[in-house]
């Protein structure tokens, strides 16, 4: 039978540092980040209206060009809808790795590293 000292103590010692030494990609793919974000926003919408865009902007956040246009509307109902749901940037972001999305303030562009 294998020496119990090797079995546990040495194995523990050998494996202790193996986690950090395991090669892993630098991070999640931009498609995965996009899909997670889309799914979370969908869940948030199921709970109630999203925070209105003008309030988000007033808090210092940057809006994308489409959100900026919607934020100018006087209707909270429209402002609390998910503009990304009908945006090509979302579709590209979810399907194409590091998609060529360059809108400032667009979360999908951020996930793509732009």
């Amino acid at each position: 039978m294998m020496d119990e000292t090797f079995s546990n103590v040495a194995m523990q010692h050998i494996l202790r540092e193996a986690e950090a030494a395991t090669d892993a990609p630098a991070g999640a793919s931009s498609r995965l980040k996009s899909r997670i974000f889309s799914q979370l926003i969908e869940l948030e919408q199921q709970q109630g209206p999203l925070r209105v865009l003008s309030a988000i902007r007033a808090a210092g956040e940057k809006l994308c060009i489409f959100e900026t246009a919607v934020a100018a509307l006087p209707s909270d109902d429209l402002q609390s809808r998910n503009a990304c749901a009908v945006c090509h940037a979302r579709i590209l972001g979810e399907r194409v790795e590091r998609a060529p999305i360059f809108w400032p303030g667009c979360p999908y562009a951020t996930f793509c590293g732009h």
Partner: protein
Amino acid sequence: MAANLQHTPQEVIGQERIFGDDLALAAAILARDRKATARLVELHSDAVHRYVWRRLTPRLEMVDDIVQEVFLAAWGGLKNYSGAAPLHSWLLSIARHKVEDHYRRTLGAHADVLDVDGEIEIPAPSADPVLGLDAKRHAKRAAEILARLPYEYAIALRWRYWEDRSAKEMAEASGRTEKAIERLLARARARFKALWEEPA
């Protein structure tokens, strides 16, 4: 609601440190602020992904699904986030549970690997395998061997030694007997040792 916007970064209240920025982010997400939600994903998905990737390699087809599950679970439990730990650690603790769920399902579904009776043939111990290798090299080698082991062996070793779970805990979680888990661990260690002793 535990999350609120009243704290500053790492404010100490009584004996408890509060991670105010993280708490504010959580509160904004609970207020259904889409930019805050994007920030959560952008700030933390890389670390969660790396954590899950390392624990599932080389079987990576489940990694994205598990990472997604982590964020959905985190979102569902965000109202319970108190700011007592950084959001980063909180998310990794959820990731740990999700990875252990995967281990449990995998080992629970492979009774044929676990329940083989009979004497385990294990080579006699040779010289201390750790001596003669610097720490970095042997850590790298151990990681490579883990990736080469049959998947059930690799996750048994990771579960036991990375997550620091006893054979009894693993048995209870996976629905196997403790003896079966001990046999699995013994086989996994033996295979690991055999590969370790191969010339590099």
